[in-house]
């Protein structure tokens, strides 16, 4: 550029391109330059009480009765709250909007006593009636609430949702007065208190929703900045699409004295490689995940900011039992017995995953499933021979379907290899784009397909009821009426938790014995957490209790050292 702009005043400059380029460069300089460096988000945030949170994708909706997905969950749990909260370490129920509750002797009637100082973020009083109305809304089919089933333990909720009854008064939720809410359940449901901390059961502000549309109308603007009224420790102040969502402490929150953070900035970052770079540059306190190939780098460096914790989810393969070669349970067992899960998690997935030999993750509400499934290639060969395929002879080439993703591909390749080596059978791989894969799987157009399930609440029921006859999440064609009876009738009627777990174990054994699915590993949550973030404890739902989190400033931490 310099050779164009060397000066000679005598020459007239009328020529277009030169002056244009000069103008361009000036604009460029003015707009692009600025002092680089400066204070990072993290150290500035530590002083001001602002938490920078890597939040995955742009949320689809902040309406708790429409939203699904983890990024939505994080934001909603900052700006709204249920009757109970979860302990940030153990996930045990703790008082939330309800200061206390009674449970009737038969375990079916819950009476909640709401706090006198419970208010909405606009200062409106927050009463028991809000819950009755919100749950009525959650059960309107027109709203398209994907989590309506979370309310089904409530008496007649399912019937109302499915249109068998039309009078909501028959549904087991009643505001006895402004401060007392009575909930009647169909069965004593030991995990009911947990459900109350799921966003689908959070209260919503009736006046705001009705101001922006009908109660059961989707896609109104009530959840946007300036409109949203919540009852959580924070309130929504800014929402810039694909850029950030900002929440600040709510002055009307009942426990505002104990909320330390002033502000949380949720940043939607789809590219996890970018997210990791942002963390390294001090632009984020917490990431939503970590690229698989970086995990070992952080592990080898013994980086204290790397956090790996067991996660309430199972990675498994579905076997389509309608396909001829997979109809025999001995074939399915043989496939499950020839997966060297330890090798798989150590060498392929590398994220500290735990080999899974049952569908339900171990430690789910005190349930540690027993399983006779082991890595036993010799036994598997015998089973396959019994089924009519000695040394894999005559076994038709079979396809593993997975959604296009490098991680899933690696697992499929490893399994393909193990099955070839131990059973001498030919496996092909087929990847499909996500929505196409979902279509194929639901239509039963697959032989073996990869799957994953993340728990909505901590109870074996949430994992085992997937495989009920004809259930929407079953998709394997497997159906066992005795299994259905155990899950639907026997387990809910058990008096004690221990007896109930025994029923689940029985059902789990049936599932493992018939093997319509092959459990592979229990997920882990892998993320980077800056050392200044305190009270963000690992737990199996990877749930953050934002009201408890505080940030340690750089000076404070150096004082301690």
């Amino acid at each position, binding site marked *: 550029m310099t050779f164009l702009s060397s000066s000679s005043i005598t020459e007239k400059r009328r020529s277009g391109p030169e002056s244009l380029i000069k103008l361009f460069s000036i604009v*460029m300089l003015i707009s692009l330059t600025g002092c680089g460096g400066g204070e990072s988000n993290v150290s500035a945030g530590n002083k001001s009480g602002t938490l920078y949170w890597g939040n995955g994708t742009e949320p689809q909706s902040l309406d708790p009765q429409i939203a699904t997905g983890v990024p939505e969950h994080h934001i909603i749990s900052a700006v709204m709250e249920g009757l109970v909260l979860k302990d940030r370490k153990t996930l045990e129920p703790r008082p939330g909007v309800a200061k206390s509750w009674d449970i009737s002797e038969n375990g079916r009637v819950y009476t909640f006593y709401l706090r006198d100082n419970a208010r909405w973020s606009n200062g409106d009083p927050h009463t028991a009636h809000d819950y009755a109305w919100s749950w009525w809304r959650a059960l309107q089919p027109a709203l398209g609430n994907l989590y309506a089933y979370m309310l089904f333990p409530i008496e007649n909720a399912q019937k109302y949702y499915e249109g068998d009854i039309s009078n909501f008064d028959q549904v087991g939720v009643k505001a006895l007065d402004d401060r007392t809410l009575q909930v009647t359940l169909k069965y004593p449901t030991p995990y009911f208190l947990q459900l109350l901390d799921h966003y689908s059961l959070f209260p919503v502000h009736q006046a705001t929703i009705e101001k922006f549309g009908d109660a059961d109308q*989707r896609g109104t603007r009530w959840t946007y900045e300036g409109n949203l009224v919540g009852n959580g420790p924070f309130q929504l102040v800014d929402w810039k699409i694909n850029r950030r969502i900002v929440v600040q402490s709510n002055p009307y929150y009942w426990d505002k004295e104990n909320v330390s953070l002033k502000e949380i900035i949720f940043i939607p970052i789809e590219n996890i490689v970018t997210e990791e770079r942002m963390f390294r540059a001090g632009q984020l306190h917490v990431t939503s995940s970590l690229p698989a190939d970086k995990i070992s780098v952080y592990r080898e460096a013994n980086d204290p900011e790397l956090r790996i914790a067991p996660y309430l989810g199972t990675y498994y393969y579905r076997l389509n039992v309608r396909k001829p070669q997979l109809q025999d349970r001995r074939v399915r067992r043989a496939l499950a017995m020839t997966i060297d899960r330890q090798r798989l998690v150590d060498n392929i997935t590398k994220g500290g995953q735990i080999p899974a030999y049952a569908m339900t993750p171990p430690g789910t509400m005190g349930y540690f499933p027993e399983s006779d499934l082991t890595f036993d290639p010799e036994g598997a060969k015998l089973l396959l021979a019994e089924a009519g395929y000695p040394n894999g002879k005559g076994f038709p080439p079979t396809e593993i379907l997975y959604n296009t993703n490098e991680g899933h591909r690696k697992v499929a390749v490893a399994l393909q290899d193990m099955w070839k080596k131990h059973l001498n059978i030919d496996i092909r791989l087929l990847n499909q784009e996500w929505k196409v894969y979902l279509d194929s799987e639901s239509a039963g157009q697959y032989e073996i397909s990869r799957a994953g399930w993340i728990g909505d609440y901590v109870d074996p029921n949430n994992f085992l009821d997937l495989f009920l006859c004809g259930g929407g999440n079953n998709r394997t064609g497997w159906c066992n009426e005795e299994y259905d009876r155990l899950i639907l009738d026997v387990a809910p009627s058990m008096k004690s938790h221990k007896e109930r777990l025994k029923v689940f174990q029985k059902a789990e054994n049936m599932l493992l014995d018939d093997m319509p699915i092959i459990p592979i590993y229990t997920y882990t949550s892998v993320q980077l957490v800056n050392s200044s973030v305190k009270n963000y404890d690992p737990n199996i739902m990877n749930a953050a209790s934002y009201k408890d989190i505080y940030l340690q400033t750089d000076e404070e931490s150096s004082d301690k050292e």
Partner: protein
Amino acid sequence: MYRFALGRLLQAIPVLLMVITVTFFLVHSAPGGPFSADKAVPPEVIKALEEQYNLNQPVWKQYFSYLGDVVQGDFGPSFKYSGRTVNELIAAGLPITAELAFYAMLVALIVGISAGVAAAIRPNTLQDYLPMTGAMIGICMPSFLLGPLLVLVFGIYLDWLPVSGWGDLPGDKILPSITLGTGYAAYIARLSRGGMLEVLSQDYIRTARAKGLSERLIIVKHALRGGLIPVVAFLGPAFAGLLAGSFVVETIFQIPGLGRFYVQAAFNRDYTLILGMTIFLSTLIILFNLLSDMLAIWLNPKLRHEIEGAK
């Protein structure tokens, strides 16, 4: 000139109609719907959603009602982002992508023209080979490689510039602009070198030299105007390409522009968003092509005569 522009605009109508029709039926025939999810969706919910978004009607009916809305400038509601309209999403992303494209274009023009002209002045010397080798590397280097490289060097090791963002931190616009502009700079360098070489060998340049004008004046005043015509012709498609193709750079640098919506919309089967973005970007491409043609005519007396002679 006006007649020329009007004619081109009229030609654009059937082109756009074609784009809308093909895209509409393509997205509707793609397997997997906007509401399928990992967790089974109850049939009641699917029914409620399809009613709300008019998907329960026959496809041809949907097509004509969509066309009616588009004519009025309404791209409808997004399926995925509950409560947002496609118009709103485009309005949110466009200024950012346009700004990014503008800066990238500046980078491309300044670097590209400087290198191209420098090379053309002394062809087949080091002053030619060096920038042209650079240009070749620039053309070959994909932005998903260049971007992370620049971030590693300037963002992480040297810690001079922010690694991501757009207008959030001082200086965060520099690396994305360079990343996006580099490939185009390389093209422009080659185009301006070629254009300049051709012009410099023409008689009127020889005349200028014979008059004893300084070399600088010859280049700047006489040669550039003709030598840059290929670059001008390239600008329209290039700017449209920058707008439509900024997805990779937007993802690498966490920039909330249009590109990210476009790709996500396809994955999500967000029919209205895919369609809205396609129509909008097609319109832009048509307009920019027209503008750059008009600019080329204005710069080139030969073309101007042809157009006016055709009247």
